[in-house]
């Protein structure tokens, strides 16, 4: 049962409605002023009203010990450089197109090897546990990386709520697929987008059930209203806009693994010693506030080895990439 605690009440619920909507107006006004001032910049232009970036709702968050001190990627870059193929295969497409995604009403199904299959409402899901603000390194398989403040709580909390059977060994998650909300859904892919984790990986406290970033609810292009963030794995392991969690005893099929298994393994741990067939994974372009991203060496498990390496003891990570 999703029991509401006093600390879980939304700031939007506390704020008087008039004041809340005024605040929105204020944000829109400020953004359009900004656009006038720096119209030539594409990043500022996308902040204009009507596009999906208009983050609506601030989240009430608590601090977290799972926070790195690396310089953060600016919000505009993290929200306009996205791989969300349902909204186009170019990284600038989702920021332009994802405004057609409707995040309410939204439910998340729990299916498979659980005591009781059920459907959870997104607003209940968001109130289930205090939302922590965690700053994670995010490494893309394409050799760029960001540092993003995500807001959510450990997926393990939700998995405990789901009550999986002891026989469940994996959890698979499914993203939304809806031609109406995704008019340019590319052909040639077997939608919906599927990803999955071994149960111990899913239960690792680092694995974040994510509802927001930068203190606001997730912008659509970043996987609103709920996504997974697994910071020691390449970004594509992190399913966006999730509609279903499925518990199973077999290693689930995952989208990129299905498309090209020699390039995208099931584990997809960040590993500088296992090259992508088309480029080295030994370094990454760290996207921060500078014009040209600095190239930095890639760390094993993206630098989260202390917390996660023990889960892979005895496994040949070149074989299980």
């Amino acid at each position: 049962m999703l029991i509401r605690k006093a600390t879980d009440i939304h700031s939007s619920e506390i704020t008087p409605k008039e004041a809340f909507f005024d605040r929105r107006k204020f944000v829109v006004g400020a953004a359009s002023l900004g656009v006038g001032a720096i119209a030539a910049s594409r990043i500022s232009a996308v902040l204009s009203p009507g596009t999906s970036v208009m983050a609506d709702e601030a989240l009430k968050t608590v601090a977290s010990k799972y926070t790195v001190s690396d310089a953060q990627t600016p919000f505009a870059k993290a929200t306009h450089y996205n791989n969300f193929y349902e909204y186009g295969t170019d990284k600038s497409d989702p920021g332009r197109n994802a405004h057609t995604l409707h995040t309410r009403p939204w439910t998340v199904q729990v299916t498979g090897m659980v005591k009781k299959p059920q459907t959870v409402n997104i607003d209940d899901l968001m109130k289930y546990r205090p939302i922590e603000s965690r700053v994670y390194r995010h490494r893309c398989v394409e050799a760029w990386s960001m540092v993003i403040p995500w807001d959510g709580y450990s997926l393990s909390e939700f998995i405990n709520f789901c009550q999986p059977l002891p026989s469940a060994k994996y959890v698979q998650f499914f993203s939304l697929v809806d031609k109406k909300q995704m008019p340019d859904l590319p052909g040639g892919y077997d939608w919906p987008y599927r990803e999955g984790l071994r149960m111990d990986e899913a239960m690792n406290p680092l694995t974040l059930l994510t509802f927001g970033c930068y203190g606001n609810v997730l912008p659509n292009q970043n996987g609103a209203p709920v996504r997974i963030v697994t910071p020691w794995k390449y970004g594509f392991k992190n399913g966006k806009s999730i509609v279903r969690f499925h518990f199973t005893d077999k290693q689930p099929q995952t989208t990129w693994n299905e498309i090209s298994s020699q390039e995208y393994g099931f584990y997809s741990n960040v590993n500088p010693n296992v090259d992508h067939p088309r480029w080295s994974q030994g370094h990454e372009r760290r996207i921060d506030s500078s014009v040209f991203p600095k190239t930095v060496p890639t760390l094993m498990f993206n630098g989260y080895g202390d917390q996660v390496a023990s889960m892979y003891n005895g496994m040949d990570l070149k074989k299980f990439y």
Partner: protein
Amino acid sequence: MPNRLIPYVKAVVHLLCLVPLALLLYRFKQDNLGADPVNTITHFTGDWTIYLLLISLAVTPVRRLHAKLSNLIRFRRMLGLYAFFYATLHLATYVFLFSGYDVPTAIAGVKAGHLGEIVTQFKLVWPTMWDDILQRRFIQVGFAAWVILLALAVTSPQFVLRAMGGKNWQRLHRLVYVAAFLGVVHFWWLVKAGVRTPWKDTAVLMLLLLARLAYTAWKRRRSSKTAARMPVSASRT
């Protein structure tokens, strides 16, 4: 086109070919190259290499359409040279920005009077680059295409043509088809599985090659007809 206009048109073509570069520099100045400028610059210079190669390959089929278009040939060499220019920028992007070459440190070194810093930094990334050249087929075909364009560029001056002799020169310069083909293959092998972005470039290249095949077939048929009608002149050839 009257011959006396050609120098002016050439100036215009020069300017047009430099517009993409100017646009790129303008976007850089405006800090408008997106979140990952290295990625943007790599794709931009690569795209324009292929565009200019395709435009230069289009010259011949277009000029065959009408006698008045025949002096378009005067622009083909410069279009090809601009394709090589953008290909070289593309390669430089790979070497200095993509590979992990530490440009700021190299610049700081040069400013401090240590010219050797340029080489020192290169030595640091060379193992990765060598790895790429040995292992990655999309880099191999891309590099091969650049080498071909380099060969065509250095043999492009008139005096080299004369020194080589027309036949040899033409044989070498037919490699431009190979370069364009490798360029498109490079593009296909680079994109992720399922992405179809290179299909437009591929379609245009195929169209241009088909136009040539069709023209050759048409000419052969015409000349055989002519030969049938005029056996005397045919026997002379």
